[in-house]
Each structure stands twice: as structure tokens, then as C-alpha cells.
């Protein structure tokens, strides 16, 4: 009988939650829309980040040298302006500059991100052993990542130039000496070094493989991070609305009317808690399905946004909603009235969401990384990314589940205690 009453109260809340179109709009559409925007901005299925092309100006004053076929300044001009290679085309929008003063002003004004000035005697200085040539790079830090990319491309070109010239400066004496020692033709050996040095420009002796902690290459989908992050955040908002409805019931005397019936007060509270919990589960399931649809249909990615370990997903879902429900009830139990409950829950949940990494990862930020571990958002998000991105097993997420359930138990106890005191008074 008591169980039936709890069911009735819970069902009333669930019905109310899922027939309130305004609440659904906020709680369901917002996280989905934000996740889709983030997915579109940072890649739905690729590890690459698309960056705006940097506006690079090249002032080439280099007159070259009779010792080389092509002036080094022309190489910069060719790569950055005239014929950027395929791999660089998307990152550089170059133009030749004739007036340095005007170009520097353009950098200041943001019309150019980076200006490269190659001096008149650059080639001659570079090839002359022990002297060295310096090119000037004038940049605007406001250009952000595109500007940084352009500077690293210029840096890379300069490294290649150095590779070639150091190979010449070290290789020619070596080849001459060895050839002379063995009575071989020095000219042929030197000519070979000159020819080989061109190929050495691009040669990489040490390459880098970026892999996950398990040593496997992973495909990252930003929805794998921001999907759970946003879903958990907006789930907590919805749970808080449900918890604040207890205060609304109290203000409207609905709660007091229920107490006039021959049922213990715990029936009312139990019903409300069950309603909040089940609503949270439903909301998360709907968002999970919607995000899987978004990842696969909208972005055409084959990445499993929530992972493939169904038992792990269910366990995490059940525990994160338990922690969220408990937390929402604590906020409501400490609020004086529904208005305060509404604003306090929005503030507290946004801050915990932010600290928990819903908007961006904060694990590596001093202090914030530690505070993050106090939030249910962190443990839920960490668990879901362990399952999806890291391909983790059930054992890997058990600590997350245990912490979330402990949080849930502690929060429910505090809320029960607080509501008990409140109802008695």
C-alpha cells in the first residue's frame, strides 16, 4: 500500500516533468544543441582542429648569392605566398609586401597576423660559415592560434634551411677529407653532399607517435567529452527543478494536504525522491540516444559516444543520477523558498558543472583540478570518457561508480535530515 502511494507521488512528478514543454525545451534541447555546436566546432570524428588561415605578409629583400641557385628568401616567398604546399594551404593566406612600415601598421591593426622580413643579405649570410642570417618576424599576439601556426610554419622552414646548411658546412669538410684520404675525387664527393643536402632538409630521423595511455592510437570525437559533460550538467538542472518542487508543494500547501492523509511523511518524501531519480534516468537516456544519433547521423562518425560497455554505462548512469538527485535535494533542503532554491541551484550547479569539466577540461589547472574531484560532474564525466574514449572496462569505472554512490548516499542522508528538521518545525 505504502509502495503504491510512493509510486503515485513519483508518477505525478514524472508526468509533470515530461509534459512541461518549456522545461523539456531547456533540459533536453539545450544540452543537445550545445553538444552539437561543440561537435561541429571541434570535430565530430576527427582528431584535427580546423583553424582559420593566418594572414601572413612576406617582405622579401633577399638578393641571393652566386653560390646557390635560388635565394633563400624566394623559398619563403614561394612556400608562404606563391605556391604553398597542399599541407599548408589551409593554414596560410600569404601576400607579398613591398612597404615594411605600412605592413607593420597592418599587423598592429590586425589586417595581417604575421609579417616576415627577409633582409637583403640573408642568403649570403646563411651560407657563409660562422656568420648567419637573421629574418625578422613581426606578429600580433591577438591573432591567437592561427598566428601561432603561421609562426611555427616559418620556424619549420627555417629549421629545414638550417638542416641543409649545417649538412653542407659539416658534410663538405668530412667528404673532402675522406675522399682525399682514400685518393678519391673530392669534387664528386662534394657535389654529392650538395645534392644530398637538399633531401636532408625534409628528412626526419626521430618521429613521434601520439597514442593513448594503453599505447593504442585513438580516434577522438568531441561529443565523447562534451556530450556526457552537458548531459550531466543539464540533468542536474532538471533534478534541481524536481527537488525545488518540494518547496513549491510546501508553499502551495499541497504537501500539507498530503500529510492530512493517513500516510507517513516519509511516503511523500520517498515518492518525490523516486520521481526525481526516475526523471533523471529518463532524461539521461533520451540525451544519450539523441547524442548517438547526432554523432552517427549528423557527423557521420562511427565513434561510440558513450562507449560499448552496456553494463558499465548502466551502472554509471544509475550512480551519477543517484548522486545528482541527492545533491539537488540537499540544495532544495537548504533553501528557504522556491525562488531561492531556483537561483541557488542554478548557481551551485553551474559552478560545480564548470569545476567538473562540463565546459572545458580543468584537470590540469592547479587548484581547480583538485576542486574538480569534489564534484559529481567530474566522476560521471570521467567514467563515461573512460568507457568511450579510453575503451575502459567495468573494473576501470568501479571507482567512479563507488564514489558517485557514496556521494549519493551522503547527499540523500543530509537532505533527509534537513527536510526532517524542516517538516518537524
Amino acid at each position, binding site marked *: 500500500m505504502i509502495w503504491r502511494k510512493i509510486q503515485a507521488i513519483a508518477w505525478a512528478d514524472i508526468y509533470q516533468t515530461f509534459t512541461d514543454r518549456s522545461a523539456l*525545451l*531547456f533540459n533536453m*534541447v539545450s544540452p543537445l544543441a550545445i553538444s552539437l555546436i561543440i561537435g561541429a566546432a571541434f570535430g565530430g570524428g576527427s582528431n584535427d582542429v580546423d583553424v582559420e588561415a593566418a594572414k601572413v605578409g612576406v617582405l622579401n629583400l633577399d638578393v641571393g648569392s652566386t653560390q646557390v641557385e635560388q635565394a633563400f628568401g624566394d623559398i619563403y616567398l614561394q612556400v608562404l605566398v606563391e605556391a604553398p604546399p597542399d599541407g599548408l594551404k589551409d593554414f596560410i593566406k600569404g601576400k607579398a609586401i613591398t612597404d615594411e612600415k605600412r605592413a607593420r601598421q597592418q599587423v598592429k591593426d590586425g589586417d595581417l597576423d604575421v609579417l616576415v622580413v627577409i633582409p637583403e643579405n640573408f642568403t649570403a649570410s646563411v651560407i657563409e660559415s660562422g656568420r648567419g642570417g637573421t629574418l625578422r618576424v613581426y606578429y600580433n599576439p591577438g591573432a591567437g592560434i592561427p598566428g601561432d601556426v603561421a609562426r611555427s610554419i616559418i620556424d619549420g622552414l*627555417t629549421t629545414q634551411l638550417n638542416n641543409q646548411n649545417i649538412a653542407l658546412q659539416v*658534410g663538405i669538410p668530412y667528404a673532402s677529407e675522406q675522399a682525399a684520404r682514400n685518393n678519391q675525387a673530392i669534387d664528386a664527393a662534394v657535389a654529392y653532399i650538395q645534392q644530398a643536402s637538399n633531401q636532408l632538409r625534409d628528412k626526419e630521423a*626521430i618521429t613521434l607517435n601520439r*597514442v593513448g595511455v594503453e599505447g593504442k592510437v585513438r580516434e577522438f570525437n568531441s561529443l565523447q567529452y562534451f556530450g556526457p559533460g552537458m548531459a550531466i550538467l543539464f540533468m542536474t538542472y532538471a533534478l534541481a527543478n524536481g527537488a525545488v518542487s518540494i518547496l513549491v508543494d510546501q508553499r502551495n500547501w499541497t504537501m500539507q494536504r498530503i500529510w492530512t492523509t493517513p500516510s507517513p511523511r516519509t511516503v511523500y518524501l520517498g515518492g518525490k525522491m523516486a520521481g526525481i531519480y526516475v526523471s533523471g534516468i529518463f532524461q539521461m537516456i533520451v540525451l544519450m540516444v539523441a547524442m548517438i544519433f547526432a554523432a552517427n547521423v549528423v557527423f557521420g562518425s562511427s565513434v561510440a559516444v558513450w562507449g560499448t560497455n552496456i553494463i558499465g554505462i548502466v551502472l554509471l548512469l544509475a550512480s551519477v543520477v543517484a548522486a545528482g538527485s541527492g545533491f539537488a535535494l540537499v540544495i532544495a533542503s537548504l533553501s528557504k523558498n522556491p525562488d531561492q532554491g531556483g537561483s541557488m541551484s*542554478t548557481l551551485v550547479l553551474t559552478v560545480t558543472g564548470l569545476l567538473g569539466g562540463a565546459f572545458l577540461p580543468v584537470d590540469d589547472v592547479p587548484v581547480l583540478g583538485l576542486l574538480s574531484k569534489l564534484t559529481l560532474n567530474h566522476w560521471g564525466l570521467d567514467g563515461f570518457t573512460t568507457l568511450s574514449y*579510453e575503451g575502459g572496462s567495468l573494473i576501470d569505472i568501479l571507482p567512479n561508480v563507488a564514489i558517485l554512490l557514496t556521494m549519493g548516499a551522503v547527499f540523500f542522508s543530509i537532505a533527509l535530515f534537513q527536510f526532517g528538521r524542516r517538516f518537524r518545525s
Partner: protein
Amino acid sequence: MRTVLSITRYDLMRLFKDRNLAVFTLIMPVVIMSVLSLAIGGNNQTILLDVVDDDHSALSKAFVEQLKDVGGDSLVVCVYGKENPDDCGLPKEDGWSDVGKKRVEEGDTSGALIIPAGFGDALQQGESVAVEYRSNDSLNAPGVVTNMINTARNRVGSSVVVAQLVYDPELATLTGTTGTTESFTALYAQAEQQWQNPPARIEEESSGKETEVGTGANQSVPGIASMFLLFTLLNAASVLVGERSSGTLQRLFTLPVPKYQVVMGKMLTQMVYAGIQFIILFIIGGFLGAEFGSNYLAIALLVIAFLLCGGALGFLLATFVKNENQAGAIASLAGFVLAPLGGAWWPLNIVPDFMRILGHLSPIAWVMDGFQDLIYYNGTVLDILPEVGVLLAMTAVFGVIGVARFRYE
């Protein structure tokens, strides 16, 4: 006009007394701005990198030394089995297999660089070798640490490539000699020496503002402030619809003043409140390290254009919704969509072209473009006129449609 101002003054006094509103419009953005400033501006923090040197050769050691050199004060290199700096928290007796994976997973270190056994030998035989960087930092790709590793491997790799000439078979034929470890080492040392003073150098000069000037705050303060200003302005829809539902608006219409003045008073309230909100948030933002340039007239123009645009959008929204709840939900949804779309959460120059174009449908993109002109490019009124123009054009479009659709009763 006096009627409009009276309504505005009265409503503002009411709003200032609303503590719940203050929590949402002031405290929340300040907290978010602070956290984001810290999270995206942390350039001066020390990063730990574990290194597993399975080779223990001269070249692997040179690579590790180069990494330390590149990292400077901002990178602590923790080599397994070595006496590590105290910051590493890595006992000498621990090996990668004991604690490595856990350290990376738990964020005790940014990642682990694994130099395979045979690294030095392979390089000395003229081969190319891959080192492995294991981390969970794909979200921050390409990542600060990856850049440092790349710089170090390019540096060491460059000298290796030159030294590998000694094993070049064609050169061996031409010189009548075969490469030896000694000749490799000698050439490597010479190349290293050349790299101390490389033939081609770069001299970099910043256009004025330095990168360490609140990079995080310069994005998060105008971004989050604009987002919360938009929430306040879109909330005009809730105010209008709510007052119409409760009959307050109708009661005001019984006064001997034109109805449009009553509505204007309500709209002006939201805009003035948002303006005050902006001033407070920007003052606090200043303490967080944000800079807004020195042209206050330009800032004022930009913000007024944004307030007008957001207000007009809120007014337009009021003509599409039926009740206060719906208005609140749609206003929140619109704010949450227009903010990231318009670059309030991240700069639009790091998103794909189509997202940049789509983003400029949001007024936030234009106000952020304007702030970028002022913050980084010493912009003047003339520089932000295009952004102001677009915001005013949006205001006109939203206003005209809103007026055409608005029903007083």
C-alpha cells in the same frame, strides 16, 4: 519620455532589490569568468612529463637533455629510475610498468615519453626511429607538451640526419670509406656545435601587447559578460509576457500615456540593467587581468549597439511565446545556443569556416569581433564601426518584425 524614464526607474529599483536576480546576473558570470580565465590562461604553470628511457644511449640522453632545455622552467622532466626533482613524486625504484599508466590516468603527469630500446643504435645505422608519447590529452591537441617534444626531437633529429651522412652508401663509394660509430659521433658533435649558432635565425617581435597579458581573461571576460548580458536582454520577453499574463501591463495601459511608452519603459529597464551589469562585470574582469583597450568611447558605442540588438531580440522573442515559462525556457535556450555559436566560449578563429559564418548570425560574434579589435589591435571608433553597423542593422530587423508582431493585449 518622462513616462518611459519613470517606468524604468521604478522597475530598476525593483530589480536591484531582487537578490536571486543578482545571483544569476552578477555572481554567476563572475564565478564562470574566474574559472575560465584560470583554465584557459594558465601559461605559467609547471607541467610534468614522465620519460621512460629504455635505451640509455648517448643519443637518448641527449634527447632528454634537449627536452629539458626546451621545456625550461615550465617543464619538469621525470626520468624513470633517475633521481628526479621532488616535484615528480616518482620514487627512484619505480618503473613504468609499476606506476606509469596510473600516473598518466590520474593526471599526476601530463603523459609519458617512451624512448625505445635500440633508439641510439638505429639512429647510428642511418635509420629513422619513432618515440611514443602516451597521454590522455587529446582534448588539448596538439598540446603544449607535444609541441615541446616536437621541438626537441627536431633539434636532436637535425644533427642526427647530418651525422647519418657517414652511412650514406653513395657517399661511401665516392669517398672510399665506410661509416663508423666514431665518425658518426664526430659529425654529430660538429652538427650540434653548428646548432649552437645556426646559419638561419629568427628574431621575433610582438606588435605591442604581450601574450602573457591575461590571455584567458581577454577571452573569457568579454565572452561570458556578453553571454550574461544577452540572458538579461532576452529576459525582456519573460518580463513583457509575464506582466501581460498577470495584468500589470494592462493596468499600466489604463494610464493616460501612449501604450508604446509603457513597453519602451519595460525594454529600457532591461537594457539599463544589462548596461550596469556590463560595467560591474568589466570592472571585476579588469581585476582578473582582462584588458579592453584605452578607447572608452569605442567600448561604449560597441556595448550600446549590443544592448540595443539584444533588447530588440528579446522584444521579438516576446511576440512568439505564449507564457512566462515558455519565454524563460526559450530565452535560456537561445542564450546558450547563441553564446558558443558566436564565440563567447572560445575564439571563432579556431573553428571551421562554416561555423565562423554560422556564428556571425549571433550578435555575440559581432560584439566579440569588436572587443578583439579593441583588446588586441588598439582599435578606435573607426575600427569597430563595421561591427556596430551590423549590430544596429540586426536591431532594426528584430525591432521592425517585433513591432509588426507585437500585441499589447
